[in-house]
């Protein structure tokens, strides 16, 4: 099972690869907002792709936009959701 640090690194890799970002994982900090002002600059289409990628890679289902807003705030919040899901 991944340690939290490994998991966050995996999630950053997943973000960069699935969203075809033009920068590396080292540019993403754990608590950096993914959306909105001062964020990584992701948009709703990126969110859609992240939802699909998290389901495919971890089986984590994000059922509605409200859950997506809560879960996809940062790498920290995504990692927490994935960990909680994997513990079930």
């Amino acid at each position, binding site marked *: 099972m991944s340690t939290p640090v490994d998991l966050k690194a995996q999630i950053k890799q997943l973000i960069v690869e699935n969203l075809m970002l033009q920068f590396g994982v080292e540019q993403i900090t754990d608590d950096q907002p993914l959306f909105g002002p001062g964020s990584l600059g992701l948009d709703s*289409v990126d969110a*859609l*792709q992240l939802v699909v990628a998290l389901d495919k890679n971890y089986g984590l289902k994000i059922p509605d936009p409200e859950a997506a807003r809560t879960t996809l705030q940062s790498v920290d919040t995504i990692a927490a959701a994935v960990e909680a899901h994997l513990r079930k």
Partner: protein
Amino acid sequence: MNSRIILITGANGALGRAMARAFLDESPANHVWLGVNRRREHADELATADAGRCRVIGLDVTKPAAWQQAVLEILAAHQRIDVLVNNAGTHEDALLATMKPETWRDVVSVNLDGTFYGCQAVLPAMISQRNGRIVNLASLSALLAPAGQTNYAAAKAGVVALTQSLAKEVARIGITVNAVCPGYVDTEALASLSDDERKRALERIPMRRFGRPAEIATAVRFLACADAAYITGSALKIDGGIF
């Protein structure tokens, strides 16, 4: 040779079968799933003739759960889905003043809701693949809105708008979404016209003939092919020159 996995709804009808034939002829590696609902005899014949590359699957397009089940089955067999053709449709013409609410609802449900549910069902797989082709069957009625077709014309106009809006949403993920708008095509629907109605219809068509199912299928197959990667959000009229 690339294998493509194609799902066509409303595949028991002449148009759906012509599309299936077009995709089967495109490549011997293609697999075509024929979505059917109440009737399936023609689709069964097609699947029997092309056993191994063509399968019939029950799919009531108005039921989201049926869509989820169908897509799960296809993904279990192939681990991908490359093309969705939302072809299932129905019409029941009446003047609005006397149209029963259920007549409105049924036509909108199959034509528009069914297209929405279908797109929603295949998108996760296509997003994951970063590739996909969706072709929605609209109609010339969406553009001309003839009298007696408020339900059908509104539903098909909705299909065009859905197509254009969704095309923008998924364009950068490698998924294209297009619509075709056939005019009069020689199918079961046209066979229900009287001789006089057929004559009047022909007079409106500059080419003076009805379209053939294979001619619609060719356009659908093109919009779904790899070479059509830069075409998205289009609504292609195929009508022998009516405008």
